[in-house]
Structure formats: structure tokens, C-alpha cells
């Protein structure tokens, strides 16, 4: 078993003690001491994954970073650093986007929330907070009257995901949840704690992400578990979060996207605001769009027995042609699936290639993404 070691002490979320007393198996992740799965009769990645698909699961994602941008020119600042078109956001609405380099590759991916006409909240990956903040602070200087503030320590973030999420959360809040649309949010209270409730998630399932003050995180966590007891809610770790997001074909920074992959190669054209004014990475992306990409991410299923993993090489014939960026045996679909960058001529569904799994060429077939789509 690999045991990652790091020099700096691991950071702890406000729920760390709760995870430990609840029997979580803790692992280092992006500098944080995080639960990978829970032990006990309802624990383990597979059961946690299935709980989210069929009932509900509760995740501590307080390691995620929050950066606010405010000021009269906040919209212009966000438009400059974020690839998606933030002018389309109404107050109370959120969007998925990319923080891009001038090459059109990823500094990070993020959610952009419009809190007020000139006030935005960016939710970024835990491992990238200092990089993102430094990048944003530098890049928004030309935008005028706008400042970026790293407010990560002001928020704990819980994710309640699964078809029973509304039923479980509604008794705890005055915010009317049923009418809330996907990728919209509202301010209110949860279990008498000031909260922002967002209908978003990283599982491909219905659900909410709930921002609360760190000192109240444990109270909200317990209240949700209590409220969801009859509905079968279980606490979930990062292991299930990863298999759930992969079934939903959501990209993972550091695996599927990074500063070597462009938004077009990552097949994320829909988060590029082609019609808006210039933004960091736009000229490179326009050029790449005109010329056409030479490789693109695809979803695949294994045809032969075996599980492709991050970093395995892709072969077309005898030629090394790409690399697997994510791969697992998925608990719900019960298939070995993954994502890989391959040459564009091999990206059509049905196209086949080989994955080198520890020296063995193992056949895989391109399939449409997402692998899993919930019934609405």
C-alpha cells in the first residue's frame, strides 16, 4: 500500500475530528488529511457510491478553496481570467469554467458564483489555492477596480448528493429547495446556521453544496445525517467522490486536465465564451479551433479484462498514441471505464485502441460521455 509522505503537516477541515470518531479511513490529499472512505457496515467506496446513486451521501469538501472578486470592475476581472462567459450569470447563478494560461491550458477548473452584480465567488481545487490566488491577483490588475481575496478559511463546504437530497435537506432550511434550478444558489439557514445552498455537485446526481462557517460545520453535518437517517444517507469519502465524478465524466484537475491540456483538447468547448471579449487563453484557443486539435479526450470502456489507470499508455497498433488520465472499475455501471487523450482520428465512438496495463496490451473501445446520466 502506498503511504504518501509530505514534509508540511497536513491541513485539517473543521470536520476532521468527526471523521476520525466516525471510523473514516484518512489519507493525505492535496495537502489535507481527508476521509477516503468510511468503515463499518455501510462504508467502503462501493457502498458509498451506490448510496449516492440510489439514496444520498454526505461529503466533506471543505478542502476546496474559495476566492472572492469584488469591486466596480469585478465582472470585467472575472471575464478576463475565467474562460466561460460570466456576463450570462444572473445574481444567484453559478457556472463551471476554466482558469486558463495564455496557451489555453488549465491553471485550474472552477465554479463561478455571482453573489451580487459586482461580487463573485470562485470555488477552486484544494491543491491549487495559492497558485490560483497569485495568478488571479496578477491577471486582474488591468481590469480596473477589482480585488481578489482568498476567503477559503471562512468556509466549510458540505456536499449532500443523491436523489433523496431535497427530502433530507428541506426540513432543515427555510429556503425552498424544490424550485431551485441546477446551478443556482440561495442564502439562508441550515439547522439554524447561516448558509449558502447551491444546487451543484461533483457526482452526476441531484444534490446540494452547502457553504457554512467552519465553526458550525459539525452541527450542520450532524443535522443532515440525522435528518437523512430514514432516507438512508451515509457519510462518503473522496474515494466515492472520484468514482462518481468519473461515471459522470466530470474532469479532475491534475488527472484529466492540467497546464499541458487545452480546453479544446479536454472537450470543454462549452466553457469557452467564444463571443465575449478577450480573456487569458482566448487567442490560443481561437487559433487551435481554426486549425483543429490533434488530440482530444475520450471516454472508453475496457473490452478485454483489466482496469486502465491514470498514466497508462495508449497504443494504436504498435505506436504509442496517448495516455489514460482516469480509470477505474465503476460500482454503479459495473464496468472498467476511463478517460484518455488520443489522436483525433481515434475519437469516434466505437474506435478501439490498446491500453498498456503493466506490460499487457488490453483492448478498449471509445464510448460517448458521460458514462452515467441520471434520470430526471
Amino acid at each position: 500500500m502506498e503511504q504518501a509522505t509530505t514534509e508540511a503537516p497536513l491541513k485539517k477541515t473543521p470536520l476532521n475530528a468527526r471523521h476520525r470518531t466516525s471510523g473514516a479511513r484518512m489519507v493525505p490529499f492535496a495537502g489535507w488529511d481527508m476521509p477516503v472512505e468510511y468503515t463499518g457496515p455501510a462504508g467502503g467506496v462501493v457502498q458509498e457510491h451506490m448510496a449516492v446513486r440510489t439514496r444520498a451521501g454526505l461529503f466533506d469538501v471543505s478542502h476546496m478553496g474559495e476566492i472572492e472578486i469584488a469591486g466596480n470592475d469585478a465582472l470585467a476581472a472575472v471575464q478576463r481570467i475565467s474562460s466561460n462567459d460570466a456576463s450570462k450569470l444572473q445574481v444567484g447563478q453559478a457556472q463551471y469554467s476554466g482558469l486558463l494560461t495564455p496557451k489555453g491550458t488549465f491553471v485550474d477548473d472552477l465554479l463561478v458564483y455571482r453573489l451580487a452584480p459586482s461580487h463573485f465567488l470562485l470555488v477552486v481545487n484544494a491543491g491549487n489555492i495559492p497558485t490560483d490566488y497569485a495568478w488571479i491577483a496578477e491577471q486582474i490588475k488591468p481590469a480596473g477596480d477589482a480585488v481578489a481575496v482568498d476567503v477559503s478559511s471562512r468556509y466549510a463546504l458540505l456536499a449532500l448528493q443523491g436523489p433523496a437530497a431535497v427530502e433530507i435537506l428541506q426540513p432543515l432550511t427555510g429556503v425552498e429547495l424544490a424550485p431551485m434550478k441546477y446551478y443556482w444558489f440561495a442564502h439562508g439557514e441550515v439547522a439554524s446556521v447561516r448558509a449558502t445552498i447551491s444546487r451543484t455537485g461533483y457526482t452526476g446526481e441531484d444534490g446540494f453544496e452547502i457553504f457554512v462557517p467552519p465553526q458550525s460545520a459539525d452541527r450542520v453535518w450532524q443535522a443532515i445525517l440525522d435528518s437523512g437517517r430514514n432516507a438512508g444517507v451515509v457519510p462518503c469519502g473522496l474515494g466515492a467522490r472520484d468514482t462518481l465524478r468519473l461515471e459522470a465524466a466530470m474532469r479532475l484537475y491534475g488527472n484529466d486536465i492540467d497546464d499541458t491540456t487545452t480546453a479544446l483538447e479536454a472537450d470543454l468547448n462549452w466553457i469557452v465564451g467564444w463571443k465575449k471579449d478577450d480573456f487569458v487563453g482566448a487567442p490560443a484557443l481561437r487559433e487551435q479551433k481554426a486549425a483543429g486539435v490533434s488530440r482530444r479526450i475520450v471516454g472508453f470502456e475496457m473490452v478485454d479484462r483489466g482496469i486502465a489507470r491514470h498514466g497508462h499508455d495508449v497504443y494504436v497498433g504498435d505506436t504509442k498514441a496517448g495516455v489514460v488520465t482516469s480509470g477505474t472499475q465503476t460500482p454503479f455501471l459495473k464496468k472498467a471505464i476511463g478517460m484518455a487523450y488520443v489522436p483525433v482520428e481515434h475519437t469516434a465512438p466505437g474506435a478501439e485502441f490498446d491500453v498498456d496495463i503493466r506490460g499487457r496490451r488490453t483492448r478498449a473501445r471509445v464510448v460517448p460521455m458521460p458514462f452515467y446520466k441520471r434520470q430526471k
Partner: protein
Amino acid sequence: MASYPASLKYTKDHEWIELSGDRGKVGITDYAQQQLGDVVYVELPEVGAKLKQGQSFGTIESVKAVSELYSPVTGEVVDVNSSLKDKPETVNKDPHASWMIVVRLSNPGEAGALLDATQYQDLVK
């Protein structure tokens, strides 16, 4: 608290072997399956494969991790538990009954250096 049968011998790599004459059934311990989490894939050798003590004879994968399986003894694989292909999760449910391979020992003396249940229990506690 897991119980480790006294009828088995154990390795520091968390395999067990159940010896019977010059043959030994090999699997992984309860501690190993707990560390792995949900097992979703087991890859085993062909009958006839020759193994050295400590050599990898296959891989076991959980949702998150891949681990090597190491042979507790030197010998030849004479049987493989092919039912684990379709039901790898039995390794989690009943690790000390979920044998993976049967090895015919070419050097039975090696088994003397393996851990007994008490020693193994001390190792993983």
C-alpha cells in the same frame, strides 16, 4: 478484531498459506483486504507458472488501488481459483477462505520461516 486461524501461515506482505503435504493454498489476509478496500479485480497466473518465494504471482485491485500478490513459497502453480474473476468481492467477505492459487512446494523447508497466527497478529495490531 479480526481472527487469524492458527491453521494458516502468514507473510509480512499479508498473504496466508494453508499447507497440506507438499501443497499450499494461498490468499490474502483480513488485514490486507481491509487496507485495500472493495476488491474489484484479481489477476492470477496460469496453472503451471513457476514461482519463487516473494515473487509476484498476480495483482489485486480495489476501486482505488492496485497491489501485487506475493508468493509465500517457491513452487509451481497447480490450481487457480477462477471463481474470483467473477466474484472478486468474496476476498473482502471471507478473506481466509478465498484462496487464489495452489502451489506445489519445491522447497517445503521455506514454510518454516513463515509467521504463525500469533506472530502475524502482533505484526498488524
